[in-house]
């Protein structure tokens, strides 16, 4: 019961740090925030008694009622330039959730609208109002409600009809202050026939605890293509709750790769609604964790219309006494005939104290569908280790190479060379420690 008290106190404390937004802001935005704040009042913090949170005990978060971030510290280009992706022309940098225009490269032109909410709301207010806060679950998810109540800055990306943005758009969310909560936010509107790649990247310069509560909403109109790469590389004291909701219209395609490396406790909810006929998604993930880390990925792929296709590969490499959680829910609704879906969860336990909970969850209400799923949990293959050792590699080198290869399969699906290289280096370094 102490958890509940803690959690209640946590919410109260957070709400106290809520500030009335500047008076100049738009009526509808004020209403959205107020509405979200009302939701916060009706919701409570989840506990392990809630099915959706069964394996992920976030009670430690209840002891950290960190207020919303104060003004972000001055951040120099040199502090963060090593995170920049050479392929990315457009970059939006947020420090503790607050937009940093000096470090960003925005666009507001016919073929790309990429910037912060406060400026784009004046030029594209109507479009933004139609989507912002409309996809994410304000009513049922306490974290989404909190994020929306605190909504101030937000990455906004609008890709007009039939426009292909050939270079990736880099959203760099940097944590600089300790013991604060930041509320990163992102809205992507991909109009029909458009094509865009977005990198959502969480990094930090600090080694102390902070909380991130992020919300991403993406809308894909007919035949739009969105590539979404999400990298969570917070420090190992951080808490990170991320929500992403994606809605796909007719024949649109969403591809995502999410990589979880950091945070003491992290939870990523990815909800993909195939709401138009012939929509397709590929949802891949890799969690590479060690020490006391807990990384939880919950995905929900909702086949609502016929001829949809989904592909999913989720991998966890769990070292030390870390704990990996994967829940992959796939729903095929009654009218979603000829759905083609496959899901694979593969997990590697590096020690006998490491833990994995993996749960495929298929709910199929249509009768003419193809749905495959599988899950494996194991250690490194002894025959593979022996094979490598018989060629002169040490036991440790053999294990490192095999672990690296296991994660490499997911990293390989990232088509941005500089980012791939950064990740390969991180994973190489990590697999060499264990």
């Amino acid at each position: 019961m102490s958890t509940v008290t803690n959690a209640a106190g946590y919410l109260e404390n957070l709400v106290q740090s809520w500030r009335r937004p500047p008076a100049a802001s738009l009526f509808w935005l004020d209403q959205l925030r107020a509405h979200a704040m009302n939701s916060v009042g009706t919701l409570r913090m989840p506990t392990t008694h809630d099915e959706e949170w069964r394996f992920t005990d976030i009670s430690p978060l209840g002891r950290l009622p960190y207020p919303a971030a104060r003004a972000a510290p001055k951040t120099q280009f040199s502090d963060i330039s090593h995170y920049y992706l050479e392929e990315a022309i457009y970059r939006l940098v947020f420090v503790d959730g607050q937009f940093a225009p000096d470090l960003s490269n925005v666009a507001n032109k016919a073929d790309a609208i990429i910037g912060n909410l406060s400026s784009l709301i004046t030029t594209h207010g109507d479009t933004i109002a139609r989507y912002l806060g409309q996809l994410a679950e304000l009513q049922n998810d306490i974290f989404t409600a909190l994020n929306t109540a605190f909504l101030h800055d937000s990455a906004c990306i609008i890709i007009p009809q039939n426009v292909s943005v050939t270079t990736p758009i880099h959203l760099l969310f940097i944590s600089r202050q300790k013991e604060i909560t930041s509320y990163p936010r992102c809205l992507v509107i991909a109009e029909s026939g458009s094509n865009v790649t977005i990198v959502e990247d969480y990094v930090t310069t600090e080694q102390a605890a902070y909380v991130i509560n992020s919300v991403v909403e993406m809308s894909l109109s007919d035949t739009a293509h969105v590539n979404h790469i999400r990298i969570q590389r917070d420090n190992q004291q951080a808490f990170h709750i991320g929500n992403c909701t994606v809605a796909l219209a007719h024949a649109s395609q969403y591809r995502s790769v999410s990589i979880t490396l950091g945070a003491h406790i992290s939870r990523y909810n990815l909800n993909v609604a195939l709401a138009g006929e012939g929509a397709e998604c590929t949802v891949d993930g890799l969690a590479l964790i060690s020490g006391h880390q807990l990384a939880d990925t919950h995905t929900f792929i909702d086949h609502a219309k016929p001829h949809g296709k989904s592909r999913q590969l989720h991998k966890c490499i769990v070292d030390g006494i870390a704990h990996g959680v994967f829940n992959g829910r796939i729903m095929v609704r009654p009218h979603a005939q000829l759905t083609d879906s496959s899901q694979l969860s593969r997990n590697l336990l590096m020690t006998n104290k490491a833990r994995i909970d993996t749960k495929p969850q298929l709910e199929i209400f249509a009768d003419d569908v193809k749905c495959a799923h599988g899950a494996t949990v194991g250690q490194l293959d002894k025959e593979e280790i022996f094979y490598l050792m018989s060629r002169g590699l040490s036991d440790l080198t053999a294990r490192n190479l095999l672990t690296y290869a296991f994660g490499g399969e997911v990293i390989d699906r990232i088509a941005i060379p500089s980012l791939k290289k950064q990740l390969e280096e991180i994973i190489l370094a990590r697999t060499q420690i264990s």
Partner: protein
Amino acid sequence: MINQNSKILLEVRGLHASVNGIEILKGVDLTVKCGEIHAIMGLNGSGKSTFAKILAGHPAYEVTAGAIIFNEQNLFDLEPEERARAGVFLAFQYPIEIPGVANNQFLRLAYNTIQSQRGKEELDPLEFDDFIRDKMKLLEMNPDFLDRSVNEGFSGGEKKRNEILQMALLEPKLAILDETDSGLDIDALRIVANGVNQLTNKDNATILVTHYQRLLDYIVPDYVHVMEAGRIIKTSGKELAKELETHGYDWINAEKSFNKTGVRL
């Protein structure tokens, strides 16, 4: 090539070994000198593959008695990777597929590990690329195999060529080829055998483990041993393989009975 003055490379005495408590090897004796090629033949289940894996240090087998001296060292003192570095090489009957590890990355890592152990120069990726392409010509291998995952999606013949490619890279003192001929068509067999022949010299030795005589048409052994029920029951020259091919393995048993009783059964 038999040369009585050659140094003894491998000396196996009274080797007993078991897996999961079942005794497979029941007293194997074998002496291999530098420059020699030995063939170990026998039916499935006779213990010949077990013997090959034990030489390489496979952890699934427990040695319960006997001794193996390799190049004046107690082989049992060496871990599998130390054996490899000391010059023992096993070409696997079923080479392992390793998805996600690029073949060239694996080959370079193995090569450089062995080179540094021998106090020789390691190669960077560019130097290695030239070096390996040259070796691949020996086995008529397509360079595309460098970029693929180790053995993944390789045909049976391609896997065996990849094994011999590793042998060419690592230049072992003792190469043990476990059923290298199985799954090879006649062209692939000729290519693989030709590769092995080019790698043998007066300072190294080869043990061919095989069920069939076919391979021995291409790699001519100095000695042929027949293994049965975990022991070597007969040793002779290369003509033994021909006789086995003609008469079958039962012939040895018949001959044994003849020797014991003086009457051909």
